[in-house]
């Protein structure tokens, strides 16, 4: 307790004399008190070296050149890069790895790094012309997703590696040719799809056949560390490494070039050894599930009868909505302002743009989103509206259909008795034994049901714009534009699903709040091929025969991915019990 400044020393019972002046007393009271006020923390001047690092870590372009020029008075350009700037990048990598730095800021740092190197380059002595090392990077056959691969490109090239980024949908011969031509030290393969893991697997086998042993780094959303480090590693004659993110890829390259692969091998073996019994149990369960899926695939391939499979208890007395028309229709000329409200901000901010919460408190994260991320979102919305690169198009339609065991039979839009296509869906082996076919009137009921199909796209121009930005080293912007394109396609799918519900007269159960639509607060469900309930991507072929999405510029790759990437297709099911489920 501070000493009372009041005239009477007893604070609990003060008395006052005629000279008492509250103003003087008040000023006196605060003579030594600063705590309720704010005191600006004086930042001490940073040293030159600290400033170099800070430019990289803060992604600060302002006065970069001045700082570099000053540094060149003391250091050789190469020392500046290797001892200070790359040290800053290392910190960036650590911050990113520990969740304390968001991807867009990492990219800003990379941009500054690139600017700095460009500034220093003319002053560098032309020595042996060999960089730190080189790598061929590719997204594998049938896969159009390239953002992860491009991030690896950015980080490796800004850390002194020569990167030969040969693009998406690369067949093995193309990859091998590039490697032979460039004599690269390693090959990096990337892919987002589950299917791409199989392609990587096939590639590794084939490379072994051809006697190739160059180190391979694998990465991508569907690939797990364990699968890579146990199964895939055993398949290949050379070394295989898992790259969780661009910085792990960088570390692996550094180790490779330093001839320290033994360290990496030891780490991998330790990890494999550490897998606990519990994890083994999980692995067995997974294997069992995989067997079931194989069995399903076999039964599907052989067309074996599935009558013995027990149907779920899904209600069969649901009234069938009236389709507004039969067959398909193309819809164009949609306004972006209609689509934007259906963008899921969480998917965009956290998923696409990688603004992770990390160690921030919920309040800090909200403030961060509001101050930093939402202005970007606003800017992207108006920019992409004004430059016209987003070209939303929809093809959708309705077909008569019936469930037949695990099959969904689709009838001709005109002749409702003529079967034209047949989807086969997997059934849960336990739990509720759900299967998508159960959500429709059965063949036995004698009634026809209605199946909705949709395919939406934002067009190809946004991919082109993203590529232009990437080529211009505008990495942050590239990430933003790419993410917007993908999430706009998802938003359009959500919007059009709402339209389909309205047309079927089942829109009454829609939540009035758009964010709740992202959690299926509406009647029925929308399943895209590849979802857990309908994992068979080849269903896309049937959808394509029915909807003819070529009319809106959408074609399938050999892995049944849609090109352009900013597109998505789906089954629309009206049954109230239809929600997402796993098989």
């Amino acid at each position, binding site marked *: 307790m501070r000493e009372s400044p009041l005239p009477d020393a007893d604070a609990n019972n003060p008395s006052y004399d005629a000279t008492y002046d509250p*103003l003087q007393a008040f000023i006196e009271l*605060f003579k030594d008190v600063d705590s309720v*006020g704010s005191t600006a923390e004086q930042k001490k001047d940073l040293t030159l070296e600290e400033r170099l690092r800070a430019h990289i870590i803060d992604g600060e372009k302002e006065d970069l050149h001045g700082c570099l020029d000053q540094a060149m008075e003391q250091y050789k350009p190469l020392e500046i890069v290797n001892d200070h700037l790359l040290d800053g990048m290392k910190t960036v990598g650590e911050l990113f790895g520990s969740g304390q730095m968001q991807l867009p800021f990492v990219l800003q740092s990379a941009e500054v790094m690139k600017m700095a190197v460009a500034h220093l380059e003319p002053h560098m002595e032309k020595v042996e012309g060999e960089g730190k090392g080189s790598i061929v990077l590719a997204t594998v056959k049938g896969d159009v997703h390239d953002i992860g691969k491009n991030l690896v490109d950015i980080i490796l090239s800004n850390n002194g590696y020569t990167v030969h980024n040969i693009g998406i949908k690369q067949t093995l011969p193309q990859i091998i040719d590039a490697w032979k031509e460039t004599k690269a030290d390693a090959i990096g393969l990337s892919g987002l799809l589950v299917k791409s893991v199989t392609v990587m697997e096939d590639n590794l086998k084939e490379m072994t056949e051809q006697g190739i042993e160059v180190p391979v780094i694998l990465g991508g959303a569907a690939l797990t560390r364990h699968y890579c480090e146990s199964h895939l590693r055993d398949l290949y004659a050379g070394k295989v490494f898992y790259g969780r993110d661009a910085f792990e890829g960088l570390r692996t390259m550094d180790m490779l070039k330093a001839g320290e692969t033994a360290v990496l091998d030891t780490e991998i073996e330790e990890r494999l050894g550490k897998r606990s019994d519990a994890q083994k149990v999980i692995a067995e369960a997974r294997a069992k599930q995989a067997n079931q899926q194989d069995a399903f695939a076999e039964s599907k391939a052989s067309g074996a009868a599935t009558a013995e499979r027990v149907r779920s208890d899904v209600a069969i007395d649901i009234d069938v909505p009236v389709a507004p028309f039969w067959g398909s229709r193309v819809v164009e000329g949609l306004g972006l302002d209609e689509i934007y409200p259906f963008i899921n901000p969480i998917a965009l901010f956290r998923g696409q743009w990688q603004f992770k919460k990390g160690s921030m408190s919920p309040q800090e994260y909200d403030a961060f989103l509001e101050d930093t991320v939402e202005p970007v979102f606003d800017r992207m919305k108006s920019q992409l509206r004004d430059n016209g690169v987003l070209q939303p198009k929809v093809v959708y339609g309705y077909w008569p259909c019936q469930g037949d065991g695990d099959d969904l039979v689709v009838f001709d839009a005109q002749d409702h008795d003529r079967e034209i296509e047949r989807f086969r869906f997997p059934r849960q082996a336990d739990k509720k034994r759900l299967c998508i076919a159960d959500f429709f009137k059965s063949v036995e009921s004698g009634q026809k049901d209605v199946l909705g199909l949709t395919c939406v796209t934002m067009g190809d121009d946004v991919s082109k714009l993203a590529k232009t930005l990437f080529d211009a080293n505008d990495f942050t912007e590239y990430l933003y534009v790419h993410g917007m394109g993908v999430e706009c396609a998802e938003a359009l799918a959500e919007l059009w699903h709402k339209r389909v519900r309205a*047309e079927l007269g089942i829109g009454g159960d829609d939540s009035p709040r758009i964010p709740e639509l992202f959690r299926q607060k509406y009647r029925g469900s929308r399943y895209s091929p590849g979802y857990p309930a309908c994992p068979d991507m080849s269903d896309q072929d049937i959808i394509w025969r029915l909807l003819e999405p070529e009319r809106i510029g959408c074609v399938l790759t050999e892995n049944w991915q849609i090109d352009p990437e900013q597109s998505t297709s789906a089954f629309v099911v009206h049954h109230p019990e239809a929600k997402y489920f796993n098989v």
Partner: protein
Amino acid sequence: MRSPDPLSSSPFAKALASRVLVLDGAMGTSLYSRDLTVEGDYCGCENCTDILVDTRPDVVQEIHESFLEVGCDCVETNSFGANTLVLGEFDRSEYAYEYSKRSAEIARAACDKYSTVEKPRFVLGSMGPGTKLITLGNTDWPTMLSSYREQAKGLIDGGVDAFLIETCQDLLQVKCAINACLQALEEKGKTTDDIPIMISVTIEQQGTMLIGTSIEAAAAALAGYPIISLGLNCATGPTEMAEHIHWLDKHWDRSIMVMPNAGMPVLVEGRTEYPLTPTAFAEAIKKYLDTSSVGIIGGCCGTTPEHMRAVVELVEGRSAPPRDEIEPAAPSCTSLYASTEYRQDNSFLIVGERCNASGSRKFKRLLEEEDWDSIVAMAKQQVREGSHVLDLNVDYAGRDNARDMREVVMRLVRQVDAPLMIDSTQVATLEAGLSCAPGKCIINSANFEDGEEKFDEICRLAKTYGAALVIGTIDEDPEAAMARTADRKVEIATRAIERAMQVHGLAQSDLFIDPLVLPISTGMDDDRRSALELVEGTRRIAEAFPEVQITCGLSNVSFGLKPAARQVLNSVFLDELVKAGMTSAIVHASKILPLAKIEDDQKRVAMHLVYDKRDTSVGGTGLPKADEGVAVA
């Protein structure tokens, strides 16, 4: 502000007060179904339907008659885009007046054919949103104002019974169009009693107007204007409009109009289609008639005479629903997006003070650097710290203040969801900000220091731009213009409130009296009583004018003290003011401390300072008793 007396001279207003009225269906849809040639009928201006009043009056009149024939009470003129801005897109801006006048004459001729004494038919002058969004800076207030004024003059001269400003996308556009109508009426020697103004906004599928305004905010921002009805048209079908119409039903105290599309539009194989049949449309309308007090029903895109025939049959014989027992929404100001009530539960209306060039060194520097993005970030920070409204003052000698005001307002209104308090001593700077702000702002401030002329000028700004108004208790007194005593504060406040209400028609609830905070920290005898006079003045103003808001620039009270001391004195003083009836304060929200967090002796001496507890022999109010001044937390 209430609508004109329903028993005024306008026959349309009388009809609206007595029965449910049916408007016509879609003009555009009807026109597009006719075989009209681009080169001949449209004069080469494809889709410029407004031209047809000149080239094909027969077709336009025939469409009007097709709706009158099925029993519609009103038709809308074919003048949706007949203003200088839209016609300018076809190089025909000089025809705005003429086309508007022709459109009204044609509709008049059609109505005259069908009017009877029992069932008079009415011409509503259609005024569409145009092709430029003013809030996004595609055009500016003066340009848009003159564009609509030409249209309104033509409609008056052609003989319309009411203006229908419809398909509104943007609040600022609505405010501008209303002013254009009012100016045109004044020019023609008429008032809204002769030709009332109806407003119909478009709420998009996502539940707000195109640029994000909710129906609550739209109603709050427009309530102060002399409009006879508010409603919804276009964008969605009857079902999707229900939520917003029901809100109006509960909170809008004048007529409500509903004019839906025939369902949600779908572009099918290159053609727009509307799914609802006449029967389905009428069924959906019946729900409104049964569950809410809709007084005017029309059809927007995709509605044919058959749709309207079905509606006429439903409405036949229904009298106008009563609107006078509605409890209007609480007085509010608004951002572009949402409304904020003036009276906050368990709190006061917190006006963030930091975006002020004379109050914040940081803001001043950002203004110098024209670092608009950081200014936006600063504004957002204040909202996060709890500010309900943001004060914005760019007065800075040597800079173009009106331009700075525009630059900042244009950005803040879109990026920050808080109403703005536009603050300047210059009328031109105030107007620059107001003419870019779509929401209902608060003007800071008017006073009598330079006489009634400037006071009146600022009141007119509030009226024109639909803003609330802060009034400082300052008058023409050459010795002491600023009211120091409670008596003077009350006297000037009374004069100002009466003048603003009686001469300018401003609502009492839209007036914020600022009884002036003066420093008590100077040690000069003159200033010692400043705080207690303010507390007393506040108490008396609140008693005399219960609906008026009372605000103040709080931090002035502790001018010159060190920051920690200021924070304590400001917080203690604010608490006293709120207890006395202060409803708002302009503060740095995060620097206001809850009393419980202030140490007792600090609190006690602060109270002594506020109430000048010096000995009476030196002019104080008397020494404190032993335990006096310990605020009960």
